[in-house]
């Protein structure tokens, strides 16, 4: 391949990409930089445009507007085979008429690499399946096929490896094991991985940086901890884990803190976790950050009083409570079963407390159900 795009290296830069299918905008004015060497995840529900974005990076689709650069090289309109980018397809797409060895050797042979045998054997050892070289893809289990698909891609040492829901077809236990292996292999070979998934847990386990996508746009981008602890929108707050969102009003400042009023009760939260644009806001607290106490127990931090326990479910590591507040909202509380304290009972009158640093604030005009109806398990591939 004498094409100069094939030797391009560096950060992947998407600039103002839009992809339209008729009237439908699959991707809407998206800009994104994926640093070289990182493990990057595009996370979002079905139909959010993440797979379309991946296909445009691979060269299988062309953007309607916008450009894609790899380092200094513009690859927007180059053919898939002219890009130093390889893909692990959702259903693996192993060639059924070729042996495992020939499947892996496919890219090397097309590029005229000399020492095919050594390269293939090296990568077969990396995925720990050297004994399967002579088999056909249909004779392999799902997990083995997954590893061969990975081997077939990384043997080419691409500048960028794209993974399209690569673990979607595996059962839960195998998926967990492959998540750890993928992460290890990424460190081992030092390639840039771009991983598309609708499984928030998978994205958080593996990726250094996650971009949460919704309706063709990036909602928020950051490290897993950033996104979880400091979501900027209701969609992110609900799509990554669960959140309690309580309507309130910002009433003042106190140094680095903001003072807010939630149905007549004062709380404080760090300024850098507020994404409100005016006085109206939603205070967000993750269920495991709440602590429940009986009315007469002294507590510190933020406190909301007047709760009543509506429902108790014991699930082993934790107990989940539904607590009804005086304004009618039910809050979710996860208590670890580690302190030997007798669990609370249905009907107990309680206070809810938490440390102010665990509070985030969203704009007051947010749709607080965004992202919550879609549970990752319900979603099919796009």
């Amino acid at each position, binding site marked *: *391949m004498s094409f100069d795009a*094939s030797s391009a290296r560096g950060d992947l830069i998407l600039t103002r990409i839009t992809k339209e299918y008729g009237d439908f905008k699959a991707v809407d004015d998206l800009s994104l930089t994926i640093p070289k060497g990182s493990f990057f995840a595009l996370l979002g529900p079905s139909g959010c445009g993440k797979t379309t974005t991946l296909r445009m990076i*691979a*060269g*299988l689709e062309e953007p309607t507007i916008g450009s894609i650069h790899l380092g200094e090289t513009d690859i927007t309109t180059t*053919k*898939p*085979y002219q890009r130093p*980018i*390889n*893909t692990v*397809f*959702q*259903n693996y*797409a*192993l*060639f*059924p*008429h070729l042996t495992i060895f020939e499947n892996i050797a*496919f*890219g090397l042979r*097309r*590029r005229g690499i000399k020492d095919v045998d050594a390269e293939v054997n090296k990568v077969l050892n990396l995925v720990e399946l050297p004994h399967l070289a002579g088999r*056909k893809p*249909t004779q392999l289990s799902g997990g083995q096929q997954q590893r061969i698909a990975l081997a*077939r*891609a990384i043997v*080419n040492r691409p500048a960028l490896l794209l993974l399209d829901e690569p673990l979607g077809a595996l059962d839960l236990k195998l998926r967990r094991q492959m998540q750890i292996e993928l992460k290890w292999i990424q460190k081992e070979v030092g390639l840039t991985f771009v991983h598309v998934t609708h499984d928030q847990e998978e994205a958080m386990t593996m990726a250094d940086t996650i971009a949460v996508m919704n309706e063709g746009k990036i909602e928020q981008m950051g490290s897993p901890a950033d996104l979880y602890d400091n979501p900027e929108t209701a969609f992110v707050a609900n799509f990554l884990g669960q959140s309690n969102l309580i309507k309130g009003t910002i009433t003042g400042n106190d140094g680095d803190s903001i003072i807010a009023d939630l149905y007549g009760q004062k709380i404080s939260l760090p300024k850098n976790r507020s994404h409100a644009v005016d006085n109206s806001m939603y205070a967000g607290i993750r269920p495991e950050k709440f602590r429940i106490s009986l009315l007469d127990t002294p507590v510190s931090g933020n406190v909301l009083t007047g709760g009543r326990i509506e429902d108790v479910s014991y699930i082993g590591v934790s107990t989940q409570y539904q607590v009804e507040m005086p304004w009618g909202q039910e809050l979710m509380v996860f208590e670890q079963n580690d302190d030997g304290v007798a669990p609370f009972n249905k009907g107990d009158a309680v206070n809810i407390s938490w440390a102010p640093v665990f509070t985030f604030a969203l704009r007051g005009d947010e749709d607080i159900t965004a992202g919550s109806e879609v549970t990752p398990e319900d979603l099919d591939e796009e």
Partner: protein
Amino acid sequence: MSKKIAEAAAPTISPVIRFRRWFGRNLIRVYMFLAFTYLFIPVAYTFAFSFNDSGKSNLVWKGFTLSNWQNPCGAPEVCNALVNSINIGLIVTVFSTILGTMIAFAIGRHKFRGRSTSNLLIFLPMATPEIVLGASLLSLFLTFHINPGFWPTVIAHVVFCISFVVVTVKARIASLDPRLEQAAMDLYANEFQTFRRVTLPLVAPGIAGAALLAFSLSFDDFIITNFNSGTVITFPKFVYTAAARGIPAQANVIASGMFFLALAIVLAGQIVNRRKAR
């Protein structure tokens, strides 16, 4: 209690019920046996009479001989007709397979104006009665001052064989996962290499099946051939003409030979497939 009832009940099952149960369990085997008997009696008859010491007419069993098999070309014209049929069949197979495969790829893989119309039109030669197709082809050839013979027959056969090739190959293309071709492109294969290394090998079994089908359709055809072949005698034409004065036993030898050859090809295909799957 229940054990006692079972013991008491067991001997009272009547032979009629037992037969019914046996019949119910084995119905599919009985049916299969009858169906295969029905299908294979003509083949068995043809094979048996290829050993008939027949002389002129091969209608009555006159005694066993191997001489027909030792000298299959013994009867006048029979091998000439066979060679004509094989020649026509091979040429037709090559042309109809190449043209039909190309049409199948066009219809199966590309969107163009008139695609659905072509899809429909390709069925027409299959649906047209052979007698109509044969007669109209003949009048077409005569209009263009082409005399019936070897090449008009080839052209006529290609006309109806193409349809069968298109349908067979198209089915195979439709079952092909487009992601395999995308994967090939992703792995540095350009359009031609993708076709040569991935698409073609995966569609090949369909093309091979279509070629075999085209050959057997051409080899077998009588009606269209009879209109367009003029003085060229093909094997079906020979058998038809000979039927008036008695089909020589050599025709049975050739027919049986073709049958076993086809059987051998199918079996070989099965064995190869099993090997591949293992």
